[in-house]
């Protein structure tokens, strides 16, 4: 066995591949350590005394040669872009190489020394991470779609429930219209004081029917979140009109209190209508056995201070001190929430209602929709009175919506994608 110098044995034990070529002798290899044997799968004995053209493909050799020449020309260390080397047994090895020009004064030889780090593992795990990330993104997108479908399904369900009421609400203006037509078709006397009045009422009736139908169409259409600047008072009026029938039939008295100077909020109207309808219908159900059912709807505006009163830690995660928020409370005087159920009312499919009466999706979907708006929905028992209070807290300013100033309607389902997960 050949005697091995200390330097050689050190080189062979380094975890990096090291080689050297003699530029003065057609770039033949004069050094080839153990790790270099491993990554190239070429034995040292075979490599020494040969140049790249004898060991690698012409294409690779051309490339190596051009780098070697550049290193000598510039006279300093060069980092070679990461390269993939195909070994003789067909495996891919990823290498990160630096090349250094070395002049050996003793022998007057110009050398190029290369040090390659095997980064195959790193590349593999990075690729794995990337594909994992892609799968995750995909799963997230699917989740988001499913949730939108869930919202849609729940909506269809409540449409069915609303249909009878809506039919009633549309038939009333129609009845009015028809009576107007009947009156006018008997001949119009120019002195008849009733004519102006009748025409005015017919116009009101058309507008009312149109509002209801449009509300229903908005409510049932499936689309991404479309936010617009909204006056809560108007929205509440529209919603109350849409479920007037339900409230009338259950004899529910409604008290609405909205401050005149309430700032606007940014809402997807149809989705938010869905939330309010869910909550109001829940309240009317809960008040089914109440002597005089009463629903109080109270809207308040608040500038959040350092320590937020009456609010748990969760609130502070969503809203920050200095934020201006709007609270919307729906207070009913129904049976309230049983203490054993209080932790579960927001669970999908949790319902205390008879089969066919409730799917148990209303609250979970509503909370999701409110969260999509950067807000919060809670449901608790009232403090001194029997009954429950559903509370929605909403931000008044929305920074996260790009192009808000430009267009009134803003599509921002993407901005909120992360909150869905």
């Amino acid at each position, binding site marked *: 066995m050949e005697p091995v110098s200390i330097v050689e044995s050190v080189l062979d034990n380094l975890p990096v591949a090291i080689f050297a070529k003699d530029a003065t002798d057609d770039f033949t290899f004069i050094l080839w350590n153990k790790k270099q044997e491993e990554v190239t799968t070429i034995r040292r004995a075979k490599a020494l005394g040969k140049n790249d053209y004898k060991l690698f493909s012409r294409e690779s050799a051309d490339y190596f040669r051009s780098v070697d020449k550049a290193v000598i020309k510039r006279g300093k260390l060069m980092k070679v872009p990461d390269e993939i080397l195909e070994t003789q047994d067909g495996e891919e090895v990823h290498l990160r190489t630096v090349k250094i020009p070395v002049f050996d004064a003793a022998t007057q030889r110009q050398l190029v020394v290369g040090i390659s780090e095997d980064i195959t593992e790193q590349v593999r795990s990075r690729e794995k991470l990337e594909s994992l990330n892609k799968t995750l993104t995909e799963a997230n997108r699917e989740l988001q779609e499913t949730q939108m479908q869930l919202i849609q399904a729940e909506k269809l369900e409540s449409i069915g429930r609303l249909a*009878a009421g809506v*039919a*009633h609400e549309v*038939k*009333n203006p*129609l*009845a*009015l*219209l*028809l*009576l*107007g037509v*009947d*009156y006018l078709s*008997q001949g119009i006397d120019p002195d008849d004081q*009733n004519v102006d*009045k*009748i025409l005015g*009422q017919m116009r*009101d*009736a058309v507008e009312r029917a149109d509002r209801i139908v449009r509300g229903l169409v908005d409510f049932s259409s499936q689309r991404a979140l479309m936010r617009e600047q909204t006056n809560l008072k108007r929205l509440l009026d529209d919603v109350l009109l849409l479920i007037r*029938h339900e*409230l*009338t*039939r259950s*004899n529910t008295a409604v008290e609405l209190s909205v401050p005149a100077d309430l700032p606007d909020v940014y809402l997807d109207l149809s989705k938010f209508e869905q939330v309010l309808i869910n909550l109001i219908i829940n309240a009317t159900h809960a008040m089914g056995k109440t002597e005089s059912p009463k629903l109080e709807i109270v809207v308040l505006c608040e500038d959040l201070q350092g320590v937020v009163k009456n609010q748990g830690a969760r609130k502070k995660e969503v809203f920050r001190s200095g934020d201006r928020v709007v609270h919307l409370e729906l207070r009913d005087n129904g049976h309230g929430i049983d203490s054993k159920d209080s932790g579960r009312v927001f669970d999908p499919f949790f319902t205390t209602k008879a089969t066919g009466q409730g799917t148990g999706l209303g609250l979970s979907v509503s909370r999701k929709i409110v969260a999509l708006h950067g807000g919060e929905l809670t449901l608790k028992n009232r403090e001194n009175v029997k009954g429950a209070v559903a509370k929605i807290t909403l931000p008044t300013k929305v920074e996260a919506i790009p192009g808000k100033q430009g267009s009134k309607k803003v599509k921002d389902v993407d901005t909120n994608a992360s909150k869905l997960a």
Partner: protein
Amino acid sequence: MSKKVLLVDDEAGFTELLKMNLEKSGDYEVQIENDPTQALGTARRFQPDAVLLDVVMPGMDGGDVQAQFQGDPILGNIPIIMLTALVDSAELSEGAVAQSGSSIMLPKPVDLPLLLGVLSNALEAAEEV
């Protein structure tokens, strides 16, 4: 002599238009009551010959009002025509009229000629008793 008709419906616009139509089409004296809980009292004062009653109203529904009338010694015998948006006209055979107790059910929106016919028939029938 003109016949007295009481309209009970929470829709003020609807009752107003119906009143105008009835007054224009026949010899009717029409009174409106938009609050169903006041219907009985108004009827006692007005002494109508017939009542047109909406089925769905807040506070008290048409059925309750009807029951009140039927329990009254004088008002118990006057014809009541119920108007409802809840039945589909298709459910009532060919413009015919469903009979429920002593009252008559008509779909809303109201077909005015049908209503006028039903009303005058009911008034005639009541007179014969």
